[in-house]
């Protein structure tokens, strides 16, 4: 039995790995398609033909693309993300702190939004058809229908400019206490919660309702089980797979999808870093950021799959 799980998990990991290889291939070649000659951009005003030629040689830009790709991949595997074109710092140093910022924001948002979304989704499913259920449904539809920059800007205006409860920026302040931390993360987290919760609520509700329609739930009802018991002991464990999947998909948004929130709250995460990198044509930085996003996505999805496998006794 355990062998079976192991082989399933391994096959999921293998699939993720294959996808990652495809992704790295795509990322590398897509970025090299960006217009502008790297050497010319780097040299700027000093871009004499000889200098460009020299630099191209030095950077192996004239090598066939596949060699450059392999060199890049080998570097990545050794933990060498390359050197930024824009300021000649190691890409790893540039990403480091900001990646932690991104993870922090994502973490706080996840801690906040996942319980809320699951609670709303599950309770709505429990009280299917009730006024509460309808209210939740309408709310989620309403929330996913508003562009996030509207939510963010409105939140800033209300909470920061008028009420002055919360700071308008999320990083300008030094964090000294927990309340300070909460204050600082409040608005981006609220905004992101709005953005990612709706989908989680919908999926959770649908998954729970689906299991509520199964014979074993009817069976539990016929044993005299109470509603909460039916939902938490019988429906939920079996809806775990799709719910975890929905959560993983929503959380993956917190890596690269938060660009608008990062922009509005001036939060220095990696999404903004990548936008900067695109503007400065900083290929090593673009590639590394893109790889981080894809890797994050794959990790989340794969983790969700593995959780689903482990939570299912039939596969265990």
């Amino acid at each position, binding site marked *: 039995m355990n062998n079976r799980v192991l082989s399933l998990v391994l096959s999921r990991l293998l699939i993720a790995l294959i996808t990652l290889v495809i992704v790295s291939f795509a990322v590398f070649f897509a970025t090299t398609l960006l217009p502008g000659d790297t050497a010319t951009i780097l040299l700027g005003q000093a871009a004499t033909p000889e200098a460009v030629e020299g630099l191209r040689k030095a950077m192996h830009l004239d090598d066939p693309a596949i060699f450059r790709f392999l060199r890049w991949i080998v570097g990545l595997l050794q933990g060498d993300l390359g050197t930024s074109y824009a300021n000649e710092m190691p890409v790893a140093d540039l990403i480091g702190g900001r990646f932690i910022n991104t993870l922090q924001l994502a973490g706080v948002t996840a801690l906040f939004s996942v319980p809320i979304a699951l609670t709303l989704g599950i309770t709505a499913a429990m009280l299917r058809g009730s006024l509460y259920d309808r209210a939740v449904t309408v709310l989620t539809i309403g929330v*996913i229908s508003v562009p996030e*920059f509207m939510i963010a800007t409105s939140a800033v205006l209300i909470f920061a400019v008028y009420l002055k409860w919360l700071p308008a920026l999320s990083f300008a302040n030094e964090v000294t206490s927990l309340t300070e931390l909460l204050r600082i993360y409040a608005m981006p987290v609220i905004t992101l919660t709005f953005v990612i919760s709706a989908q989680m609520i919908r999926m959770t509700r649908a998954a729970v309702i689906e299991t509520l329609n199964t014979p074993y739930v009817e069976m539990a009802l016929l044993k005299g089980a109470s509603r909460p018991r039916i939902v938490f002991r019988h429906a939920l464990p079996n809806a775990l797979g799709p719910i975890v999947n929905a959560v993983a998909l929503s959380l993956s948004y917190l890596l690269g999808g938060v660009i608008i929130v990062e922009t509005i709250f001036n939060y220095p995460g990696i999404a903004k870093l990548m936008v900067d990198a695109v503007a400065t044509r900083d290929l090593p930085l673009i590639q590394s950021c893109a790889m981080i*996003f894809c890797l994050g996505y794959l990790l989340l999805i794969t983790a969700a799959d593995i959780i689903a496998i482990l939570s299912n006794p039939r596969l265990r």
Partner: protein
Amino acid sequence: MTMTNSETKADRISGTRLGYRFNIIGMVGLSVILFWALIAIFAPLIIPYPVGEIVDLDYFGPMSRDFWLGSDYLGRDMLSRILMGARYTVGISLAAVTIACFSGVMLGMFAAVAGGWLDTVLSRFLDALNSIPSKLFGLVVVAAVGSSIPVLILTLSVIYIPGAYRFARALAVNINAMDFITVARIRGESTLYLIRSEILPNIVGPVLADLGIRFVFIVLLLSGLSFLGLGVQPPYADWGALVRENIGGLPFGAPAVMAPSFAIASLTISVNLLIDNLPKKIRDRSE
């Protein structure tokens, strides 16, 4: 019982006679969608002022008899801009969602029917595509080839093909396991026939619902991309761009920023309502 009364009333409203049951919420959704579709088609004929013309010396003007929805940050008539914006938002999103769903569904059905390594390769490839954050993907594409309507449409479609593919493949795999597919296979039918005549008719319902949800996502992504500065060429603007360019009016509650937001919300909410309340074919067995 009172139940019976309300039932008959509902029957009367929703016109059961067509053989479909369609509740009032779904009809409201459909009406709003049709409204915007008509606006999109006839916008040039009904706009009160030319879209690019500055007609109000003030900016972020309030609602008035001359300017029903006030004026924008340059003093242009907001009503005209929103009516024309419907063309871009509805048009681009519709084109993108059509391309995305068509390609995604075709590929998904093909993968399900073909199976084997073709299925694996396609699935991996589209998974990889899916892992790239959509807005950043949009930014890179626009940095690479510039922003124009075809580029926008294609970018949006490419972003949403993997989702449509996954969805359609999952459905098609289920259908593919059905005996009637086996029957058709051993009849000697071609893959194309299987896809077109046996699988497609059975997944078209959920696919249409999926298309609706994807449409909403595309509308929102389009406005997100507009926020990041990618969008249609001036003086025209899609709704997202209208919100973006007038966001300075938000502190004053200017109609210039509220109206396009409501337009987006009305469209997306309506599509959602319609999908959640699609007309159901009545299948009372009358034997």
